[in-house]
């Protein structure tokens, strides 16, 4: 299987064509823009935090298949997580794509993005939404 096939899997196609949680929230408690200055891709992440948990998440933006799928999958995964849990997921996701660490089971379908590590150029695409998440949850 080529690197490309390893990366552009069915699951990403689904999220690229029909991204989940795409749009805006009615009453977000945090709104965080994210930009990948190297290509100009940008997104805006909205969260509603309640009792230390991410009650709702939505995002909007334009970007490549990798960044869109990553944002879609992330927005689904973090819903219901406590802030420390969400940050831990971010850490694990980045370990996987930046450092090439073994994909953590908690990442679920996001493990489909493990191949990004070998396609170095795409790391910034895959982490765009996650960087925005980390910014948004900064104390």
């Amino acid at each position: 299987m080529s690197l490309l096939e390893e990366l552009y899997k069915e699951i990403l196609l689904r999220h690229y064509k029909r991204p989940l949680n795409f749009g805006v929230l009615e009453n977000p408690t945090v709104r965080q823009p994210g930009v990948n200055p190297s290509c100009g891709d940008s997104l805006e992440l909205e969260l509603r935090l309640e009792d230390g948990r991410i009650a709702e998440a939505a995002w909007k933006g334009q970007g490549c298949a990798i960044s869109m799928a990553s944002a879609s999958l992330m927005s689904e995964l973090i819903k219901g997580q406590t802030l420390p849990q969400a940050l831990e997921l971010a850490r694990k996701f980045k370990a996987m794509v930046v450092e090439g660490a073994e994909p953590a089971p908690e990442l679920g379908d996001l493990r489909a993005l493990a191949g990004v590590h070998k396609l170095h150029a795409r790391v910034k695409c895959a982490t765009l939404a996650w960087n925005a998440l980390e910014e948004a949850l900064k104390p």
Partner: protein
Amino acid sequence: MPLTLESIRQDFPLIAGRPDLVYLDSTASSQKPQAVIEAMSRFYRESYANVHRGAYSLSLAATDAYEQARHTLARFIGAEPEEVIFVRNTTEALNLVAYAWGLHNLREDDEILLTEMEHHANLVPWHLVARRTGARIKAIPVTPEGRLELAALDELLTERVRVVSLVHMSNVLGTVNPVVEVARRAKAVGALVVVDGAQSAPHLPVDVKALGADFFAFSGHKMCGPTGAGVLWGRAEVLQDLPPFLGGGDMILEVHLDRSTYAKPPQRFEAGTPPIAEAIALGAAAEYLMGVGMERVWQHDRALLEHCLARLDAELPEVRTFGPRGEDRGGVVAFSLGDLHAHDVACALDQHGIAVRAGHHCAQPLHRKLGLASTARASFYLYTTFEEVDRFVEGLKQVREFFKDWL
């Protein structure tokens, strides 16, 4: 031996040594001929010393080589040596003009006229200066074909316009702008004319005197030269009264603790130890290009472009290209494939050994106008072959096939 495309390719070690690679990113930066690499190494191995201020032979020889490079670059663009200022790159050159001329001359409500197709290098310096001076920025629109909307000039070129700064050849659309006409009309309202020649100097014959501009900026690394050296050309009469930009050694006459007086141009604008080896190697690059002939470089780019566009038009209806169709267009093909994102396309092409750039190419306003966050871009140079263009087209077809469910 006549200069053939094959012999030119043999001059570039990276091109000759990587037959697997189709390098289509010369607009971002060109590869280097051995003559340039060797000019630099030889200088370090055999005759390196700091320039100026040296009372010993080695330093004098280095100074001579450095000043010789200034003469060569002057010849390359039809200028006088005293009008050639060595800088790092086009970006620094344009900042020099914006700061040295702009901070000194712009007042509140003065107008700076740019174009919608500018590279960030010709936008951001003016933003910085506008904020400090209260001057305002306007832009000549770009037509749907990718040309400057000259009809808008009448209205835009008011008496308030103090400077018109525009790109000679767009790094996205490939458009070669009618600088002579814009300069003439800008001069009629008394405006300074600044030309971003980052793409024109490497790709077509340039005669700065004929352009009618006051400043012309370009980068060495895009014209077979090393990184770290570029040129700002300034008309002698304009440089004469231009205050300095960077302060330091070699640009002064007399320095006291709290004040200083400045040297004549071009020294006034070269503070500190210059990029000596880089300027010398850039001289070698200009010699190399003049050896090939800039008209020939331009015609080669043009031929590759026409071949590429013809094939894309005929065989890849899903590919949309940007930029004008006509003689006023150089070897740059920015494109999109269906709704696929440029990054996905470029990354897939890279898997076939085809190197194209993806992104906004430092022209966000232009991309906003095109309605896209980014495009992919293939660009050609004197070492690019028709076969490589064919490999690019075939590669694109494979990418289309790979992404057929995504399109």
